[in-house]
C-alpha cells in the first residue's frame, strides 16, 4: 500500500488537483492578509485624523469626512484641511518608500538595502536644495525633477563604489558602507548650504531631517509622481522573482536581465525621489516595510510589492501619530522616529549570518 497514493502514475490528475488546492488556499490567505493590511491602513489613517494636539472624537472625524457637519465647524476644518492631507501624504510616502525598499533589496540581493541607508534619499534632498538655493526652484512638482536627478546620480555612485570594493568586503557590506560614506558627505553638504543663516536653517531644515509637519500642502503636487511610480512597480513582480535568484539563473530562465534591472532601478529611484521631494529624507521605512512584508508573505515579489507598500504606509502613519503624541513642546520629526525604530532592526539583520559569514 503506497503511503502517498496521489504520486502513483496511474492517477495523474490528483496531484494537480492537490497542488491547485494548495496554491489556491495560499493565494486566499495572501489576499486575506492584504485585506487585513488595508484595514490596518484605514485604522492608522483614522488614528492620524483623530489624534494630535487636539483630540477629536472618532464619530466627529467620520461625520466630517462624509460632509455631515457644517463646513465652518472648527473640528471639521482641522480634520479636512490639515489632518486629511497629512495622513494621505504619510500614506503615499510610506507606500513609495516601502515599495522602493522591496525593489532595492531584490535588485541588490541585499537585506540591508533601503533608500535611506544607501544615501539615495539624501542625494535627492541635496539636489532639491541646490535647485532651491541656486536656481530658485519653487513648488513640490518642480522639486520632484531635481530629486529624481539627485537620487539617480547617487544610486549610480553607490553602485559603482560597491562594485569597485566588492572583492575586499562582501558586496552587501561594501554597499552599506558606501551608502554610509555618501550619506555623511551629502548630509554635511546640506548643512554647509543651510547653516549660514538661522532663518534659512529653520526654513530648510526638513531637507536634513524628514518631517510631515507642515508639509501637508505638498500632496496636491506630488501624488501623480508617487502614484505613477507605484503603478510602474506592478509588472516588476515576476522579473524580480527571477532576479532574486541571481543574474545567471535569471538569464537561464530567459529573462532580459539588464533591461529589467535597469527598469527596476528606475522605478525604485522614481519612488524614492517622489517621497523625498514631498517630505525630505526619511530613512529605514523601506527596510522595515520590506522585511515586515517578507515575514508576512515570504519571498514572492508579486506579493511582496503590495505588502511592502502597505507595510511602509502603516508604519509611517503610526510613526507620525506617535511623533505628535510624544510629550514636550512641538512635534518630533518623523525621520527621527523611523531611525529609532529602524536602526535596531538594521542591527539585528546585520548580525545575521546571511550578511557576514562567520
Amino acid at each position, binding site marked *: 500500500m503506497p503511503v502517498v497514493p496521489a504520486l502513483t502514475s496511474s492517477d495523474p490528475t490528483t496531484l494537480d488537483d492537490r497542488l491547485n488546492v494548495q496554491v489556491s488556499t495560499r493565494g486566499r490567505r495572501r489576499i486575506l492578509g492584504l485585506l487585513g493590511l488595508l484595514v490596518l491602513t484605514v485604522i492608522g489613517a483614522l488614528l492620524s485624523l483623530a489624534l494630535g494636539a487636539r483630540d477629536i472624537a472618532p464619530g466627529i472625524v467620520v461625520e466630517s469626512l462624509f460632509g455631515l457637519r457644517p463646513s465652518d465647524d472648527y473640528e471639521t476644518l482641522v480634520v479636512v484641511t490639515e489632518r486629511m492631507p497629512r495622513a494621505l501624504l504619510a500614506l503615499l510616502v510610506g507606500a513609495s518608500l516601502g515599495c522602493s525598499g522591496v525593489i532595492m533589496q531584490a535588485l541588490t540581493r541585499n537585506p*540591508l538595502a533601503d533608500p535611506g541607508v544607501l544615501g539615495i534619499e539624501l542625494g535627492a534632498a541635496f539636489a532639491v536644495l541646490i535647485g532651491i538655493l541656486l536656481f530658485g526652484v519653487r513648488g513640490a512638482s518642480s522639486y520632484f525633477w531635481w530629486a529624481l536627478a539627485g537620487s539617480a546620480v547617487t544610486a549610480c555612485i553607490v553602485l559603482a*563604489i560597491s562594485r*569597485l*570594493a*566588492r*572583492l*575586499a*568586503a*562582501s558586496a552587501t*557590506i*561594501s554597499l*552599506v*558602507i*558606501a551608502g*554610509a*560614506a*555618501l550619506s*555623511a*558627505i551629502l*548630509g*554635511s*553638504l546640506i*548643512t*554647509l548650504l543651510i*547653516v*549660514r543663516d*538661522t532663518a534659512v*536653517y*529653520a526654513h530648510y531644515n526638513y531637507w536634513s*531631517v524628514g518631517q510631515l509637519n507642515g508639509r501637508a500642502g505638498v500632496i496636491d503636487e506630488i501624488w501623480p509622481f508617487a502614484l505613477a511610480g507605484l503603478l510602474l512597480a506592478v509588472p516588476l513582480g515576476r522579473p524580480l522573482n527571477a532576479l532574486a535568484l541571481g543574474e545567471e539563473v535569471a538569464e537561464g530562465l530567459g529573462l532580459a536581465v539588464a533591461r529589467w534591472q535597469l527598469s527596476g532601478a528606475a522605478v525604485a529611484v522614481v519612488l524614492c525621489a517622489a517621497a523625498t521631494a514631498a517630505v525630505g529624507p526619511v*530613512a*529605514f521605512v523601506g527596510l522595515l516595510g520590506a522585511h515586515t512584508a517578507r515575514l508576512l508573505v515570504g519571498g514572492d515579489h508579486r506579493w511582496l510589492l503590495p505588502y511592502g507598500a502597505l507595510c511602509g504606509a502603516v508604519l509611517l502613519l503610526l510613526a507620525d501619530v506617535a511623533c505628535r503624541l510624544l510629550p*514636550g*513642546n*512641538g512635534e*518630533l*520629526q518623523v*525621520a*527621527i522616529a523611523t*531611525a*529609532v525604530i*529602524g*536602526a*535596531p532592526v*538594521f*542591527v539585528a539583520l*546585520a*548580525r545575521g*549570518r546571511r*550578511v*557576514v559569514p*562567520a
Partner: protein
Amino acid sequence: MTDALLPLLALGRRRERIRSIVVCVALGAAILLLTAAEILIAGSADIALDEMIPAAFGLGDGLAAYVVFETRVPRALVALLAGALFGLAGHLYQRLVGNVLATPDILGISAGASAAATAVLTLGVAGIGVQVSAVLGALGVAALVFLLSWHRGVSPYRLVLVGIGIGACASAITTYLVTRADEMSVERALRWMIGSLGGADWNGVRVLLITLVFGSVLLLIGSRGLRTFALGDDLAAALGTRVSRLRFGALLLGAGLAAVATSITGPIGFVALVSGPLAARLVRRTDAAVAATLVGAVIVVAADLLAQTAPFISPVPTGSITAVIGAPALIYLLVRGRRRS
C-alpha cells in the same frame, strides 16, 4: 648569513627611526603654523598684529586682548587637542581590531558619547558631569557594538555594520534631544549633531590636555604588549602579553579618549578614521601612534581654520568640513582594501 643581514637590518631600523622623527617634527611644525594662523586670522574682529602677539599669551588688556585670549586661543588649542585625541583613539582601534574601517567614529562610539552628553545637558548638568556622561555613553555603545557583533570572535565587517546601525540610532536620539530642548541655539544644536568648536573655552583645553597626557602615559605603559599584537594573538600570548586583558583595556581607553574629545567638540567625524592610515603612509610603518596623534591634530586645526575662513561658506561647523574631506577617504579605504586581499 644572519651575520651579514644584521647590519642591514639595523641600518633599516635606523632609517625608519630617522624617517619617523623627521615626519613628526614636520607635523609638529605644521601644527604650530596652523594654530598660529588660526589665532591670527580666524574670527570676525580685526586686530592689529602688534596687539595680537602679547594678547595671545594673555598679556595686554582691553577688548582685543580679551577676544584673542578668551575665544581664539582656546578654540585653536581645543581643535589641536581634540584632533590629537581623535587621532590617537582611531589609531588604537585600527590596530586592535585589525581593520582600518573600525574606528570610534565609524563604530558609532562618538555618536553614543554625543547622545549621552546631550542627554545630561538637557537635564541642566554642566561641567565635568558632561564628560563623565559622554565617557559612560561611549563605553556603553562600545560594549553594545562589540557584544552584538560577537559571533565566535569579532568579524571586523560585522562590527562596522552593527556600528553604523547603532550610530544611526544614537544620532537620531541626539537630534531628538536637541529639538526638544527649547533654549538650544542652532549653533549649539549643530555642535552636538555634527561637531563644532564654537563654544571652546579654557576649561575645555584643560580637560582635553589632562586626558591626552593620561592616555599617552597609559599607552606608553602598554606599548610593548600592543606591539606584540601585530604578531597575532597566539604569538603575543607566547611572548607574555595578556592578550584579552590588554585588548579590552585598550579598547576601553580608545573609547574614553574619543568620548572626552566628543564631549567638548561634538562628534567631529572621520578624523579618527583618516589619521591612522595617513600617518602609516607618512612614516611607512603601521605602529605609528605619535604620528597618528599629530596627523589628527593637523586635520582638525586645518578643518577649523577652513570652517572659519573659507570664502563663501564660512562660518560653518567644523564637523561638516571633516566629513566632506574624510568620507571620500572612507570610500578610498574601502576600495583599496580590495587590492590588499
